[in-house]
């Protein structure tokens, strides 16, 4: 059956992975054409690192980058402010030539997946 593969990664699975493991897994999957859905998303630092790694992997022929769909971070409570830990939110990452954002608001994201 032809189609676009979607990998839905649970929060539990993500929590067991180091940042680099997560980012490597995302990039490898996305480069092979898969759309990756992360239940708990990435931290801002991981998002920046993902962009950095993506730039290193762009080959200008087969892979031109990624499209990321996520909501803005919510402000945390006292402890999260003190220790700077912010939990990521549901995030969808795909190859830029397959995933296209249609509408993005703080509480609604509409995207198109091209076969």
């Amino acid at each position, binding site marked *: 059956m032809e189609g676009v593969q979607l990998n839905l990664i649970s929060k539990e699975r993500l929590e067991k992975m180091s940042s680099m493991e997560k980012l490597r897994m995302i990039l490898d999957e996305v480069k092979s054409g898969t759309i990756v859905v992360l239940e708990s998303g990435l931290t801002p630092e991981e998002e920046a690192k993902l962009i950095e790694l993506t*730039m290193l992997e762009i080959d200008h022929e087969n892979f031109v980058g990624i499209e990321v769909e996520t909501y803005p971070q919510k402000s945390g409570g006292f402890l999260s402010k003190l220790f700077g830990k912010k939990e990521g939110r549901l995030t969808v990452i795909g190859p830029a030539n397959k995933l296209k954002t249609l509408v993005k608001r703080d509480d609604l994201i509409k995207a198109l997946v091209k076969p």
Partner: protein
Amino acid sequence: MSLILRIKKKFSVIFKFLKKKNRMKIGIYGPPNAGKTTLANRILRDWVGDVMGSVSEIPHETRRARLREGVTIEVDGKSVTIDIVDTPGLATKIDFHDFLKYGLSEEEAKRRAKEATEGVIEAIKWLDDLDGVILVMDATEDPFTQVNITIVGNIEARNLPLIIVANKIDLPNASPARIKAAFPQHTVVPISALKGLNIDTLYKCIAEKFG
């Protein structure tokens, strides 16, 4: 990140404050074509009589970060001296085909794309060496882009002072209110860097936030 590292990071902000430098290093960030270099040129022209770099309608015109040290801004008798870093536009994708429609040859477009990817990496690396950020957004565009969300998230995580500039208010479809609604926790200053509209409000805000 481990708890110890997080605590260390938090306390580094306090140490930074205690040994506050004479002047802060301020990065100008944003997506491509938001008007970062136009704003840097406006600031330098107004206070130093110089420019930072060339601007173009072709995205990713700035592909290397540029540093200008010792720019003194005076507002209402208050003076602040900052170092300004004009960074390349951040993006999650760079396709050389996008440059072809501006009349570039395939070779030029590919070179520009390659340099642009290096520029994005450089811009991200600079985040670790800054004391504050001016985030330039195009007020005619949707502010909820991944680039804007990532930059704001990283600045908040680093506890850096931030000014969001809603640029291009001279254009008819500009909506700075949309940016204010998207990032209500931050100071948003609507301006036109090209025409100089409301630029004095931005200078006042720079003096307050980075002084």
